[in-house]
């Protein structure tokens, strides 16, 4: 079975094709002109390069957040429509969990970070153990300091992945490391492996049901609730 995977949650547009769990091709492009323009031509090129016919695609896997709101919607709208048109499976995986699959190595704490604006990050912590990715701390919006403190609280060395380009290794506390540059950015191959590991848990019965995982509400809603004097917190 051919699996098409994509991730547009961050600043890269990344797509991959796998055949029966083996990577056949992956392309990751920094999209200066935006993912809206790049995603579909990139998918078209990928299929051509691998000489895969559209009807051979058995599943589409997509990264569903958290990340750039617009980027997530580009990815999900595209993936939903492809899966519906092809009548194939649609698999959704968390962006942070997919990032953890960039470095599936035992004995480490994996701390993916995605930009949550205003100096904040979306962060969750994972540990790869006996072939499984375990979530040890669930996703939250935290400041840079909180993110580092959460990573440092674990005994094992922690690796920061994702949108870590503003961080410097020399500023990090002992035991916290930036992942090698080649492993920092979202990778469609990791989306694919996360989806394969999740199996049926990643699948949706109806492609329209797969929605972005924003974590944060829109600013307008937060502002409105503050004005109404309602305590915010629950989604």
């Amino acid at each position, binding site marked *: 079975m051919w699996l098409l995977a994509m991730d547009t949650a961050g600043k890269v547009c990344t797509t991959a094709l796998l055949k029966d769990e083996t990577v056949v091709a992956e392309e990751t492009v920094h999209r200066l*002109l*935006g993912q*809206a*323009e*790049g*995603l*579909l*031509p990139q*998918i*078209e090129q990928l299929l051509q390069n691998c000489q895969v016919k*559209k009807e051979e695609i058995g599943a589409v896997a997509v990264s569903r957040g958290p990340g750039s*709101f*617009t980027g997530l*919607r*580009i990815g*999900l*709208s*595209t*993936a*939903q*429509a*492809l899966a*519906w*048109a*092809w009548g194939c499976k649609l698999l959704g995986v968390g962006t942070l969990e997919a990032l953890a699959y960039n470095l599936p190595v035992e004995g480490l704490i994996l701390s993916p970070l995605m930009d949550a604006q205003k100096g904040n990050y979306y962060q969750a912590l994972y540990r790869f153990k006996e072939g499984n990715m375990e979530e040890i701390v669930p996703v939250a919006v935290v400041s840079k300091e909180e993110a580092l403190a959460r990573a440092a609280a674990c005994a094992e060395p922690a690796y920061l992945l994702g949108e870590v380009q503003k961080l410097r290794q020399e500023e990090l506390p002992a035991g916290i490391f930036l992942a090698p540059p080649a492993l920092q950015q979202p990778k469609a191959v990791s989306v694919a492996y996360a989806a394969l590991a999740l199996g049926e848990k990643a699948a949706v019965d109806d*492609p*329209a049901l797969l*929605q*972005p995982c*924003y974590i944060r509400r*829109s*600013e*307008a*809603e937060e502002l*409105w609730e503050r004005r109404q004097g309602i305590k915010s917190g629950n989604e």
Partner: protein
Amino acid sequence: MKEDIYILGIESSCDETAAAVVKNGREVLSNVIASQVPVHRKFGGVVPEIASRQHIQAVLPVIRQALDEAKVAQKELTAVAVTYGPGLVGALLVGLSAAKALAFALDRPLIGVNHLEGHVFANFLAEPELEPPFLALVVSGGHTSLLKVTDYNAFSLLGETRDDAAGEAFDKVARYLGLPYPGGPEIEKLAQKGDPSALAFPIARLASPYDFSFSGLKSAVINYVHSQVQAGRPVVKADVAASFQKTIIAALVNKTIAAARAEGLTQIALAGGVAANKMLQKTLSEAAAAAGARLIHPAPILCTDNAVMIASRGYYLYKAGIRSPLSLNAAPALGLGG
């Protein structure tokens, strides 16, 4: 016998997620609209991020419903037409991404449609015999433009607003009067109970004969209300609404008739959300008749944002051999007659 052409239209430029199937450019097989108006009401206007979130929830269900109601299978579609501008960029990208993916997945041509041209094409569905040339007055929350339609794919812009769009002036005045969003229909409703000659509001005179300006009118209305309140005098909201509406409609009608006369056009088409205003329809229709022209306007359901008009516009682009690449991006500030 030529083969029938089935176009799927998709629209997500503002606060309606819409999909439609149109046969041969003029036969509506389905028209599905998921409106977000109630969601935005508490904010007093469209919130872009919330609009985008609503679109991604609605886009695929709306497309499926459009095909189901039309009883047209994916494979029977000839092409996919989609609004790529103007509008809210995040909102546009939801419909555009789905359209591109569908066109690619089904091996069908993608046709990017200018939303404003779509509004004009709603008139072809209102009146199956309508053929160019005609004059179009596009009036919406974002635009006020006079367009000469010489052929299905040839337009020239005669004039447009220098500042606020007509619909924007309606909405802003409505908000100032404390009316709920969207304000246009509320002003129209309130105006029915008021005296349109109660108050005299000024309208800008511009050197360019077919350009519009409504920000002065809007300010005059707001200043009037403000000064009445300051002085402790009553504000008869119905009179304000009626007088404002009369003034703005007079400006729209006068310039439209002048343009029709100067261009020798005997068909005038009304388009855009404000085209649903009954008083505008009536006044323009009477003025057109007096000038030897006739007015065409879409049914209310095709005045608001919809995908039927996008599919219809897409059909004529398709017939002209116009296709869009899969790299098509949203064009939030796309203009008319370019």
